[in-house]
């Protein structure tokens, strides 16, 4: 069993209205050092696959469904987990 941690974020070139709102919220709380906030998604997938085979499958899943290539990009990490 492996666990894939998938991070989906908006591309740098795409304005993030949620991130802007969070940034101004933080500024209201006094955290003026925050220059930018980007809000993304974190997904955990548990796969019944050897770790070596998982990367290719997860990449396929990201390309087909988990991320929209028009506005988003993704990264992922794969680790063995116990049953």
């Amino acid at each position, binding site marked *: 069993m492996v666990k894939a941690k998938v991070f989906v974020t908006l591309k740098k070139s795409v304005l993030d*209205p949620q991130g802007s709102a969070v940034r101004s919220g933080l500024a209201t709380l006094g955290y003026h050092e925050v220059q930018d906030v980007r809000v993304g998604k974190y997904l955990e997938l548990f796969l019944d696959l050897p770790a070596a085979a998982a990367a290719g499958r997860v990449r396929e899943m990201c390309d087909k*469904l988990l991320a*929209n290539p028009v506005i988003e990009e993704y990264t992922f990490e794969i680790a063995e987990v116990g049953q």
Partner: protein
Amino acid sequence: MKFGVIVFPGTNGDFDAYHVIKDVLQQPVDKLWHTVDNLDGYDCVVLPAGFSYGDYLRTGAVARFSPIMGAVEKFAAAGKLVLGICNGFQILLEAGLLPGAMRRNASLQFRNIFVNLRVENNRLPFTSLYREGQVLKMDIAHGEGNYYVDAATLQELEDHNQIVFRYCTPEGEITPAANPNGALMNIAGVCNRRGNVLGLMPHPERSSEGIIGSADGRLVFESILRFWEGRGGNG
């Protein structure tokens, strides 16, 4: 002319679209469950508004893998008419039948208001009964209508007149204040290059009878019918 209105789990605008086609346009129409995989016999399909599959992950992201979407792709490739309204537009974007993607509204609010739209392209099967530059009043109801394309794709859209509707003031000016969701260039609706697939965030089907606030959307449906009749009624 035979219409189909597609129903995904979570669709809720199917009743409005069905009503306008059946009772206002007075044309035959069927509701099509998302498991249907053959659209033979239909001349136009509508992907209506709603929250297909709860809009989980991204709006339209899951619906695009429904069995009927393979049939819609073939239908579009054959030159038949496909109209996506609101969530239907979002599904067409996810399916790659139209260019672009939706972000959360810039305000982060769900907006349900009447907006003004300017007709930018009236040479389509969906818009031929409008005047170019005509200002329409239509309903919107969405939280993710903040349309985005990259600069290269935007140029392509402009070069091929694929921007069909833009949010404007009542006088027809394209201003930031008239933009309800932050959409790039105030874009409210786009078509594919061939002009037989249209997606728009505003609701022509909820703006087709004066008694509910506006009848300006009705000409979308009348235009479709006129187009079909002009082709001898054989689709």
